[in-house]
């Protein structure tokens, strides 16, 4: 029996609302197949599954809001039958972290063999007290009879409520989407600034060669196929990361886990306000043309609110480009559990000394915000220098 649980699609996601199942009981599913559409506070996301099997039971109803980690469906593995699966004990998912007790999962209902109750066991007193204390009852683990959440559990959770982020993440059912996104961003950014000791570096990057190369490359291309400077910057970041793995990966459970590929989260501002930073996968391995297609597609889908779960949960580093808005430089806030963020300001002409002569140079300020628990300023400086140098050889991108 395989349990399909609601994945966390980012540090700012505590729960999601099932919009639609894309599979039915009896369907066989393959790795990477989209099985459901879930509304996070940021977007409607296509949820992919990463195992193979036959859908047995769908446990979550559309329009139901469930915490991350909830078993949404069960699947039969190859060779498993409905009978053997029914008898298999249903284990509660392990809490994802001590500070954020997870939902113990649906419990078997009294008397009905294999029938699963859709509602968690929360005592009325616990539910009421949680409301009074502003504790999200769905985040409280139950210790009462049959895993019920009791008053004591709520009081414990309230006492342990270290992070105001969790309060911020409490979904107000009546609040509109924008407010929910604002809270999600507040939670993630609040956590980032509380937990991550940021250090910041910046470097003016001469952009003449890149600009000239780009103009040449775009000559003769139809407008729709033209490359943007952003694509060169993404590729340059990905190539620079190869020598500086400590900028690329996750800081989890007190340790750094380097990533094997550069899945770069691209900060995309949304029309209704807020932003989202889904990943372009394997940026270092892709051609500029491919990256341009990917970027255009990603921006379009992000703004339409149809992203895939892997794009939401995979970014190993984030790149933000506020150049178009006209700022000279941006010093970003790292999106946990990532460990670095690269920012690009606008490309502006500046007086520039080259070969003992004063001239005019298009310059963009590249900045690095990095996690001091993982890397030091020295390595950060070398990384930024490598990024600068990559952009001096646009033909190699």
């Amino acid at each position, binding site marked *: 029996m395989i349990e399909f649980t609601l994945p966390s699609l980012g540090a700012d996601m505590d729960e999601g609302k099932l919009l639609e199942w894309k599979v039915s009981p009896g369907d066989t599913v393959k790795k990477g197949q989209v099985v459901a559409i879930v509304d996070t506070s940021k977007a409607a996301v296509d949820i992919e599954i990463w195992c193979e099997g036959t859908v047995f039971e769908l446990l979550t109803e559309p329009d139901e809001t469930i915490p991350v980690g909830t078993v949404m469906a069960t699947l039969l593995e190859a060779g498993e039958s409905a009978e053997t699966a029914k008898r298999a004990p249903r284990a509660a998912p392990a809490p994802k972290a001590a500070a954020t007790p997870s939902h113990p999962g649906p419990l078997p209902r009294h008397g009905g063999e294999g029938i699963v109750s859709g509602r968690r066991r929360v*005592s*009325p*007193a*616990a*539910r*009421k007290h949680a409301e009074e204390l502003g504790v999200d009852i769905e985040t409280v683990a139950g*210790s*009462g*009879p049959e895993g*019920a959440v*009791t*008053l*004591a559990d709520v009081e414990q959770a309230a006492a342990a409520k270290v992070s105001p982020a969790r309060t911020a993440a409490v979904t107000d059912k009546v609040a509109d989407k924008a407010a929910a996104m604002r809270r999600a961003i507040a939670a993630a950014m609040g956590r980032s600034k509380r937990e991550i000791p940021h250090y910041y570096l910046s470097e003016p990057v001469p952009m003449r060669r890149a600009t000239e190369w780009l103009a040449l490359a775009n000559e003769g291309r139809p407008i729709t196929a033209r490359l943007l400077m952003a694509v060169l910057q993404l590729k340059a970041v990905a190539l620079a990361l190869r020598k500086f793995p400590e900028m690329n990966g996750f800081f989890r459970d007190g340790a750094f886990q380097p990533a094997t590929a550069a899945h770069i989260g691209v900060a995309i501002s949304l029309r209704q306000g807020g932003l989202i930073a889904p990943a372009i996968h394997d940026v270092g391995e892709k051609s500029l043309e491919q990256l341009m297609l990917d970027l255009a597609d990603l921006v379009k889908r992000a703004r339409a609110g149809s992203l895939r779960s892997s794009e939401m949960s995979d970014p190993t580093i984030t790149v933000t480009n506020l150049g178009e808005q006209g700022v000279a430089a941006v010093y970003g806030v790292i999106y946990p559990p990532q460990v670095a963020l690269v920012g690009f300001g606008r490309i502006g002409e500046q007086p520039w000394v080259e070969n003992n002569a004063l001239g005019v140079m298009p310059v963009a300020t590249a900045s690095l915000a990095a996690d001091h628990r993982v890397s030091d300023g020295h390595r950060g400086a070398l990384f930024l220098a490598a990024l600068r140098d990559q952009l001096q050889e646009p033909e190699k991108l």
Partner: protein
Amino acid sequence: MKMTYREAIRQAMFDALAADPRVFLMGEDVGRYGGSYACSKGFLEEFGAERIRDTPLSELGFVGAGIGAALGGMRPIVEVMTVNFSLLALDQIVNTAAALRHMSGGQFSVPLVVRMATGAGRQLAAQHSHSLENWYAHIPGIRVLAPATIGDARGMLAPALADPDPVVIFEHAQLYNLEGALPDDWRCDIATAAVRREGTDVSLITYGGSLPKVFAAAVQLAAEGIDAEVIDLRVLRPLDTETIAASLRKTHKAVVVDEGWKSGSLAAEVMARLVEECFYDLDAPPARVCSEEVPIPYARHMEEAALPQVPKIVSAARRMLGK
């Protein structure tokens, strides 16, 4: 002063007979035999055959006679041997005694006290062992009492006799030999439930013959670190909802212990009120420890198995606390 529950009942009746010439005792074997449970031993000699009246084996007849006497200005105490036999007098109690004040537009009242034994535990089998208090507690127009302590056995009769309406008193047969200290001030009301032991973790709500078992369970739970509050309902009709609700609001958990059967029981009524009044204070589903749904068996081990017992109460409380 130490005394038995039986002696407390006897003294209460003795006092009432001595104090008010309108009071008389009537029932099977109350006179020459001294009462089936020896609660009126010596009364015949003391008060004479006019006031201590042996009756034929006809509950319908002598309870009806009691009602007539009450209507005529007397203050009868009618003793029915057990609640099982009182079913023969249900018509008198339910259709007449309880209804007359209402049917006469308040012109008549029936100041009658009916005492009866109830409960199991003495190997008397299914026709002498049932707990049917809830049948009476269902009926508007009568007050139903269940003295469970020496003090209440001594104190409840006087206010019951003073009540202008019918009062039914249930004495659990297992309690008669209970020995304990009579409180200095044993005078009491017949309106409220009592907190017999204060606690914070779980409310054990009971009455009558189950109270000693619940106490024993509370002591055992205390040794395990579970601080149980013990509520004695005392008055089965009208129920003192406020006292049980206040206890629940403190402990948030309730186990109701009732020797009646679960189905349609007083325990069910108590639970219903807790859910109605205190839903948002409940930290666990209320639980019940009642008799098994069988006519009470004769064989000792089966009778014991059928009744609420200390280990059942303890484990119900433990389960509720997730232990």
